C-alpha cells in the first residue's frame, strides 16, 4: 500500500515535471470531459461555443466528444457513468430526465452549484425548470434551451386567402375549422400537400399527436403513472382522428420520412410545415441564397383545440455520477463555471432556432431583434413537456409507439379507437 502510494506520488511528480516543462503557464488547469449529441448545424454552433470558451478560459480545458443521438447516446452514458468512465458534463434531453433518475446516474444540482455558475432558479422559464427537476423537486439538470414545434408557412400559397394580414403574416387561425379551411384554400391554390410533417417517422407523428392531445388538456401519462387517465383516451382518439382526416383529405403527405417532409415544404409543395424550430436556420439560409422560391414565415402553433400550448423539450446540462467515486470539488466548480458561461452565451445557440431557457438572454433586446426566432418565443411559458415517466422522452417507447401504432393508424390501417387501445397497452407494458 505504502509502496503503491509512493510509486503513484513519484509518477505524478514525474508527470508534473514533464508537463510543466512542456506547458509552463497552465499550472492549475482543469480538464473537463464533455459529451454531446449535436450534429449538423447544431454541432457546428456548439463547437464554436466550446472553442470560444476554451479561448477565454485558459484555466479550464474542455475536451468535447460528439456521440450518436438517441438510444446509442443514452446507453453509453448510463453504462459508462455507472462504472466511472463517463463524462464530467453532458447534454441531456430534459424529457429523458425521469429515465436518468431511474438509472441513478444524475447528480443533484445544488444551490451552491448554481451560485458558482452565477445562475439562479428564477433565471429560467418555469416549464423548463420544472422539467429539470425530479419528483422530489430537486434540480438534476440546468436547462439550456427550449426547442419546440412551430408552424412554418408559405406566403405565396396563402395569397388571396383571408389567412394573411396586410404585412403578409399568418392571421386568423384560432380553431381547427379555420386551420382546415386554410388547408383547403392552399390546396385550391395548388399546394399538393398543404400540411407537411414527418407522417412516417416517430418524431414527426409523436409531436403532432402530443400537441393535439395537450391542446385538449389530455394527459398521455399522469404523474402517478397512469396511461391516458380519465377522458384522455377519448382525447387521444380525437387527436388520431384529426390526423387521419388530414390524410384522407390529401392534406398531409403519405408516409413522409423526415427529409421528405422538409423537402415538401422547401420545394413549395406545402403551405404549412409542422416541425421543430431547429429547421429555422434551413429556411433562413435557403432564403438568403434565393433558393427557396417563395416568401416564408414562421409562427407559434396556433390554438387548434381548447388550450394554447404545444409540445416542447429542452436540452440541458447534467453532471453524471463518476461510478463509486466523487468528482473533485475543483473539477465540479469548473464544470459549473462552464455551464454558467454557456447559459450567458446562449444567444449564439438561439441562432439555431432554439429559445434560450435562460431568461436574461431570452428577454434581452438582442434576442428580441433576432428574427424570426423571437416571433415564437412566447411559447416558452406555455409549452407542454413530455410526460414525467421513464418510458417517455426522445428515443423512448412513446416515440416507438408513435411510429409503430399511430403512424400506420393515421394512414388508415387501423381505426383510431383500436390504435389508442394498443398505444395504452404498449405503454403500460413498458412501464412494468
Amino acid at each position, binding site marked *: 500500500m505504502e509502496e503503491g502510494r509512493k510509486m503513484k506520488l513519484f509518477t505524478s511528480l514525474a508527470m508534473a515535471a514533464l508537463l510543466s516543462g512542456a506547458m509552463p503557464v497552465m499550472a492549475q488547469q482543469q480538464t473537463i470531459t464533455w459529451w454531446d449529441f449535436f450534429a449538423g448545424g447544431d454541432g457546428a454552433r456548439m463547437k464554436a461555443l466550446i472553442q470560444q470558451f476554451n479561448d477565454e478560459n485558459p484555466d479550464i480545458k474542455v475536451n468535447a466528444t460528439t456521440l450518436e443521438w438517441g438510444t446509442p447516446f443514452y446507453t453509453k452514458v448510463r453504462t459508462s457513468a455507472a462504472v466511472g468512465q463517463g463524462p464530467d458534463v453532458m447534454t441531456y434531453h430534459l424529457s429523458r430526465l425521469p429515465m436518468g433518475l431511474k438509472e441513478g446516474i444524475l447528480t443533484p444540482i445544488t444551490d451552491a452549484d448554481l451560485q458558482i455558475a452565477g445562475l439562479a432558479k428564477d433565471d429560467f422559464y418555469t416549464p423548463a425548470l420544472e422539467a429539470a427537476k425530479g419528483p422530489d423537486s430537486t434540480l438534476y439538470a440546468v436547462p439550456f434551451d427550449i426547442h419546440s414545434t412551430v408552424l412554418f408557412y408559405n406566403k405565396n400559397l396563402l395569397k388571396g386567402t383571408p389567412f394573411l394580414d396586410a404585412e403578409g403574416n399568418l392571421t386568423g387561425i384560432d380553431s381547427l375549422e379555420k386551420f382546415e379551411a386554410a388547408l383547403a384554400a392552399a390546396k385550391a391554390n395548388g399546394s399538393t400537400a398543404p400540411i407537411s410533417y414527418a407522417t412516417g417517422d416517430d418524431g414527426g407523428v409523436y409531436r403532432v399527436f402530443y400537441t393535439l392531445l395537450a391542446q385538449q388538456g389530455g394527459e398521455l401519462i399522469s404523474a402517478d403513472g397512469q396511461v391516458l387517465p380519465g377522458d384522455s383516451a377519448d382525447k387521444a382518439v380525437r387527436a388520431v382522428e384529426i390526423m387521419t382526416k388530414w390524410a384522407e383529405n390529401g392534406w398531409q403527405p403519405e408516409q413522409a420520412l423526415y427529409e421528405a417532409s422538409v423537402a415538401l415544404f422547401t420545394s413549395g409543395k406545402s403551405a404549412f410545415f409542422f416541425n421543430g424550430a431547429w429547421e429555422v436556420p434551413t429556411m433562413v439560409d435557403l432564403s438568403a441564397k434565393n433558393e427557396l422560391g417563395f416568401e416564408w414565415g414562421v409562427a407559434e402553433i396556433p390554438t387548434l383545440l381548447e388550450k394554447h400550448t404545444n409540445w416542447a423539450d429542452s436540452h440541458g446540462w447534467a453532471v453524471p455520477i463518476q461510478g463509486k467515486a466523487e468528482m473533485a470539488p475543483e473539477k465540479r466548480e469548473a464544470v459549473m463555471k462552464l455551464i454558467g458561461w454557456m447559459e450567458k452565451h446562449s444567444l449564439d445557440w438561439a441562432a439555431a432556432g432554439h429559445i434560450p431557457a435562460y431568461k436574461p438572454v431570452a428577454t434581452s433586446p438582442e434576442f428580441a431583434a433576432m428574427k424570426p426566432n423571437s416571433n415564437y418565443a412566447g411559447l416558452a411559458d406555455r409549452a407542454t413537456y413530455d410526460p414525467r415517466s421513464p418510458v417517455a422522452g426522445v428515443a423512448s417507447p412513446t416515440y416507438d409507439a408513435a411510429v409503430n401504432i399511430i*403512424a400506420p393508424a393515421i394512414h388508415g*390501417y387501423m381505426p383510431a379507437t383500436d390504435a389508442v387501445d394498443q398505444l395504452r*397497452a404498449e405503454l403500460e407494458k413498458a412501464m412494468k
Partner: protein
Amino acid sequence: MAMIRNQRRHRLVAYSLILPFVAIFSLVFAYPIVEVIRLSFTNATLIGGGEWVGLQNYRELLSDKLFYTSLKNNGYFVLLTVVPTTAIALGIALMVQRLSGRLQALALALFFLPYILPVSVVTQIWAWMLDFQFGVLQPVLELIAGKPIPVFKNPHWVMPMVALVTIWWTNGFNVLLLLAGLRNIPQDLYEASALDGANRRQQFARITWPLLWPVVALVLTLQLILQLKLFDQVYLLSEGGPFNSSYVLLLMVYREAFQQNNGGYAAAISLVVFLLIVTVSVLQYQLLRIRGRK
C-alpha cells in the same frame, strides 16, 4: 514406474496443448453463458448485479403478449426464407454448374457479391429502391398492386419484403455450398445412367437429389439458425412496426436491454431464443437425416 511417469507426461503435454483453447473458450463463451443464465434470474440493469428474483422474468415473459407476437413473426419469417432461399439457391447452383470456365466464375461472383456487403449497406440500398416517394421499384409495385406501396410501413408487406431483402443478401453463400455438393457427385454416375437411357429428370431425381441431400439438409439447418436470429434488417428497415407486425425476439432483447435498461429480463428472453434455436435446429437436422436415410 517409467510407464506411469511417461503417461503422466503425455497427459501434461495434452493438457498444455488444449489449454489455450479451453482458456479462450471459457473466457469468451462459457463464462458469458453462465452469466446470462445467472442474469436471467435477477432484476439486474445493464450495469450491476441486481437482486435474485427467481423465475419472475420467465413468468413475465410467458404472459407477455409481445413475446408471442415476436415468436409468431419469427416463425413467419422462417417460413418465408428458409425453404425458398434453399430452393432458389439450388436452382441457381444447377444453372451455374452448367456453365464452364470463366463464365462460371463470373456468374458465381455475381451471385455471391451481395453476401459480402454489410447489412447496413444492403438495407440502405433496398430502402432507397423501395422508397415510397422516390424509389425506382415503386413503378413495379404499382404494376402489381395498382398503386405505390410504402412496403416497410404496411403490415402485410413488411415481412415478405424483409424476407426478399434477406434472400437477396444471403443467397450467394447457399449457392456456393450447393455447388460444392454438386461437384462432389461423381460424373460416371451420370454417364452410366445416360447409357441406360435415363433422361435429365430421372437423373436429377435418382442421382443428383439423393446424393445432394446431405448438403441440402445442411443448408436448411444453417438457414434456420440464421433466420431465427433475425434482427439487423428489421431494426434498420421497419423498427418492428407497423403494429408490431415485424417485431422479432432479438428486437425485444435489444429494446429491453439497451433502451429500457432491463438487463435481467433481456437475458431471460435471449436465453429462451438460444434454447429455441438449439431445439429447433437439432430437431430439424435429425428429421432431415432420417428422411435422407430412407
